[in-house]
């Protein structure tokens, strides 16, 4: 398990916590842009954006994780990720507080996720990376975003 977790991760900040997702999953990072709301969607589904002609659904990761909503600052970014949907890869944007950097995480720096202490369900967590005294939570973004509602929206788009 720890072997497969080494690699490049894109770290971002969510509610003052550093999270990381596999860089290969990241398609693009863009700054905050106007979101078109879609009715009858869960709360964490913010809506859709128009990215160079493409319509991409956006969800607020904070709300997804049950954290309190935060105001969007100039550092707030949307990370467009590519995840495996039911049939094909779908692109979904997630709103994060800020993007940090691309990190090359070695295998020995990754540990198993404990079963408590964080606000995120442990299914979503791939592991914990310990870099320079800081703990970054490595997320399984597929599991985070794979959701009936999300998928439907993605298919509809």
């Amino acid at each position, binding site marked *: 398990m720890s072997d497969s977790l080494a690699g490049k991760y894109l770290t971002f900040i969510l509610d003052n916590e550093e999270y990381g997702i596999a*860089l*290969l999953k990241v398609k*693009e990072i863009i*700054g905050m842009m106007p979101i078109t709301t879609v009715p009858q969607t869960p709360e964490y589904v913010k809506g859709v954006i128009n990215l160079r002609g493409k319509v991409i659904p956006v969800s607020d990761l904070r709300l997804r994780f049950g954290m309190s909503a935060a105001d969007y600052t100039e*550092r707030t*970014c949307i990370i467009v990720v590519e995840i495996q949907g039911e049939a094909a890869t779908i692109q979904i944007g997630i709103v994060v507080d800020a*993007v940090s950097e*691309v990190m090359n995480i070695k295998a020995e720096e990754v540990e198993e996720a404990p079963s408590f202490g964080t606000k995120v369900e442990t299914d979503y967590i791939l592991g914990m990376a310990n870099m320079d005294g800081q703990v970054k939570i490595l997320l399984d973004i597929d599991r985070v975003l794979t959701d009936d509602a999300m998928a439907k929206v993605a298919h509809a788009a």
Partner: protein
Amino acid sequence: MLNKFKLSTRILMLGVIIVIAFSAVFGWLYPKIKGNMYDAKYLKTRHLVEAAYSVAAHYASQAENGAMTQEAAQQQAQETLQAMRYESDDYFWINDMTPRMIMHPMNTTLNGKDLSGIKDPNGKYLFNEFVAVCKKDGAGFVDYMWPKPGVDAPQPKISYVKLFPQWNWVIGSGIYIDDVQKEFAGLFTVIFAVLAVITVAAIAVSWLMARSIAKPIDHIIQSLNTGSDEIASASSQVSSASQSLAEGASEQAAAIEETSASLEEMASMTQQNADNAAQANHLMKDANQVVQRATSEMTDLTASMGQITTASEETQKIVKTIDEIAFQTNLLALNAAVEAARAGEAGAGFAVVADEVRNLAIRAAEAAKNTSALIEDTAKRVQDGSELVAKANGAFSEVAGSASKVGDIVGEIAAASTEQAQGVEQINNAVTEMDKVVQQNAATAEESASASEEMNAQAEQMKHMVQGLVTLVEGQRSKSAAAPVKRKPAAAKRRVNKGAAPAASSKSVAPEKLIPFGDNEGDAFQDF
């Protein structure tokens, strides 16, 4: 000498003296009248006896002429004489020189008897006496006691006997002294009665007169005394009052002097106040100008600080832009890294380039942040400075406000000082006036004090005169009016006076009460 007696006594003495004079006159007259009466009686008796003698002489001449014999003549003479009466009871008798009774009309038993042994109850040999007298003087008076017709006991009698030498007869007739005495007594009883009545009346009248004179005089003395006492006390009161008035006036004058001095000080102080106030005003104006200058400079300062702030804000915007650029560059770098990772092997070099770009972006962001921090710092400092300037401005405004208030107050002080100076001036005038009045008061008090002294002297004189009057009415007392009085002599004198004038003892009480020279007021007089 008369001064020893009271007036009433003297008036009484007048009456008494008159009465005494009258009495003296009567007393002097009494023996004279008595003598005259007696003499008249005697004369009458002698005349009667001489008349009887002439009868006998006639008969004797008849006998000598030879018209009748001597015996017949004697007989005739005896009968005639025997029958002669006067005053209804009085008679003549004849006795000879033996003595022997020749004829006694009443005591006929005596006729022819020897009379030498007869004596009256007093032991007088009366007939012998008759003979003796006739022998000596030929006629004369003899007094003896002889029974009176109608009266049992012998009564005093005086007889005149005349010797008829031709026949040796002693012819006599007598009058009973008691008759004379009765007559005399009756007369003098009447006289004495009248005298007594006159005496009583004179005493009473003079007593009434004395009283009527002395009493009003006493009243007058009383009133005068009371009046002069009151005058003396009133004048003493006036004197003391004017003394205290003079003292008060002098005190007042002294106080006015002090007040005047204080007012002078106050006036000079006020003037100083006014000067100081004017100076303060001046200084305030200068301060105001300074403040205004400072305020304008402050305003300039504020303006330039505002400009600094504006410039800072502009710079801040630019820095913000740079920061955004850095951010976007960062994103681009990340995207580039993502693409490079997707490219796999082919994108390895590109990943390095992306990394470097990201570093640059980070450095730019860093620089922007530093600059921003500096600018913020500057802005903060400017803000602080601005606040300080505002505070200073506020302080200056306050100062200006205070200065203007002070200026107003100082102006008021100046005006008040002027008014105060005027007021002090007026007070000064009033005090001067008061001083004049006080001087006048003092002078008037002096005058009234001296006038009351005069009045006191006059009252004392009046007392003296009253005392003279009292002396006149009461009689002289053993002291002088002006000398200090001892009580004992006065009391003794009073007792003497009371003894001397018993009739007017009631009089002596009232005036003595009035006359104070034995009492306090005499001493009180000495205070003056």
